[in-house]
């Protein structure tokens, strides 16, 4: 029996094509995933991301514990600020990637992937032993991501002028509480916008309000091509427990300073750095026509082989694009095996698209 978000009825009403995603019955698209992609790049769209797992941590050891648990350092966070980070195992493998919000002193909120919920919660429980804090999962929350260059203009009418001002002042990776809504300036599309966490019983009303503000519903299909164009990793495809952030284009999210912060996985990452990092995650742009697919083989002449971790098609560039893990010394070209033939592709540093335009 698949799980349903509180917005499930809204999706059916909008004739969504539903698919299973990590045990949830979620909208893939509402007609055309390409149109939804362009809608977000050019205008404003919204996604039901209530399947994601929200977990609150409170108590006097919260900060101390998170400093140990997460590869990025929460010390810099002040209330209302957010941080993207990996959570590693002792081998430096990525258990999950997540966003941590500092809500107040001794109160942090983590948003983790839905597909990894069970193992994340188990890991939290295991690591929490001996610390003075309380973990509370928040299935009573829904989450709506509103994304696109016209989002600010379009949602203004739904807020008072005082609230609009607070939203206007919101810097990237910060959040405010506006009545029932926890509104963060974050996203997974590479566009301006907000992710809104709100009580489940308010979700349908807000979804309708956003619809009335001409923000179009978009499904997981568009969400995937948008995040790929933006060069954002997908957990389970682009990284997992068998690779480290250093091999996943996520070295920037690992805070090695201060040196005395003993986070889980630190020793393994330091060892890997000392020995030399053998692989890297890069962007691939197909030279000819076609669509890149997960697990296609990459050949880098005179260097070695790699594999596509997320392959798809970029509606903005009208080309096949992908993230791929390749040997560290790979230059700017490679070959991709497609239907038994090796075809040429360009190797680039993600993102592929920024602010609606080619960026590589």
């Amino acid at each position, binding site marked *: 029996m698949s799980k349903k978000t509180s917005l499930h009825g809204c999706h059916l009403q909008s004739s969504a094509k539903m698919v299973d995603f990590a045990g949830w019955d979620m909208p893939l698209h509402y007609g*055309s*995933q390409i149109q939804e992609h362009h809608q977000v790049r050019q205008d404003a769209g919204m996604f039901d991301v209530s399947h994601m797992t929200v977990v609150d941590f409170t108590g006097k050891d919260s900060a101390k514990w998170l400093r140990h648990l997460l590869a990025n350092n929460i010390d810099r966070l002040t209330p209302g600020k957010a941080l993207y980070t990996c959570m590693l195992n002792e081998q430096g493998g990525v258990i999950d990637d997540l966003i941590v919000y500092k809500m107040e002193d001794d109160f942090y909120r983590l948003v983790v992937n839905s597909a990894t919920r069970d193992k994340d919660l188990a890991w939290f429980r295991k690591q929490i032993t001996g610390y003075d804090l309380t973990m509370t999962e928040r299935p009573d929350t829904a989450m709506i991501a509103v994304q696109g260059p016209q989002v600010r203009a379009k949602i203004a009418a739904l807020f008072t002028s005082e609230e609009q001002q607070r939203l206007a002042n919101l810097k990237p990776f910060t959040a405010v509480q506006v009545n029932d809504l926890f509104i963060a300036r974050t996203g997974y599309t590479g566009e301006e916008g907000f992710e809104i966490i709100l009580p489940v019983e308010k979700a349908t009303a807000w979804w309708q309000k956003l619809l009335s503000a001409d923000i179009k519903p978009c499904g997981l299909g568009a969400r995937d091509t948008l995040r790929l164009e933006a060069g954002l990793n997908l957990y389970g495809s682009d990284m997992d427990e068998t690779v480290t952030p250093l091999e996943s284009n996520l070295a920037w999210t690992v805070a090695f300073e201060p040196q005395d912060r003993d986070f889980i996985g630190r020793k393994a990452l330091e060892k890997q750095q000392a020995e030399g990092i053998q692989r890297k995650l890069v962007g691939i742009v197909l030279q000819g026509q076609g*669509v890149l697919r997960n697990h296609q083989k990459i050949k880098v002449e005179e260097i070695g082989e790699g594999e596509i971790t997320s392959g798809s098609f970029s509606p903005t560039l009208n080309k096949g694009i992908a993230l791929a893990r390749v040997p560290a010394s790979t230059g700017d070209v490679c070959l991709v095996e497609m239907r038994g033939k090796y075809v040429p592709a360009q190797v680039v540093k993600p993102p592929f698209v920024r602010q609606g335009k080619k960026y590589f």
Partner: protein
Amino acid sequence: MTNSVPKTLKYSKTHEWIRQDEDVVTIGITDHAQCMLGDLVYVELPHIETSLELGQECAVVESVKAAADIYCPVPGEIVEINESLFDSPQLVNEDPYGKGWLFRLRPFESTFRELLSADEYTKQVASEAH
């Protein structure tokens, strides 16, 4: 959602439709097939004058989600391909039985084997759904 299955066409088990006009047949993919694939972004078609056997892989349609091979439902020689699909593959989604046709061929034989009527195809789609 119910997909359209025009009564005037013939169908293959592999979700192609076939329309006979005098000495050529036109082939495309069904509304059901395009709906299952989602937005098409790339179409690869056979070359003109290629001879195709029954069931031969002869074209590829790719959506963001998946690639699907097209199997030749009627043996024959390719006489025309829908070149507008190279720039506008979405025509297959928008108008699968019209502007989204894939190719035309001149059949080797006057009677076609293994084709389904609209009713038979509808039944097949329904049985696949269960």
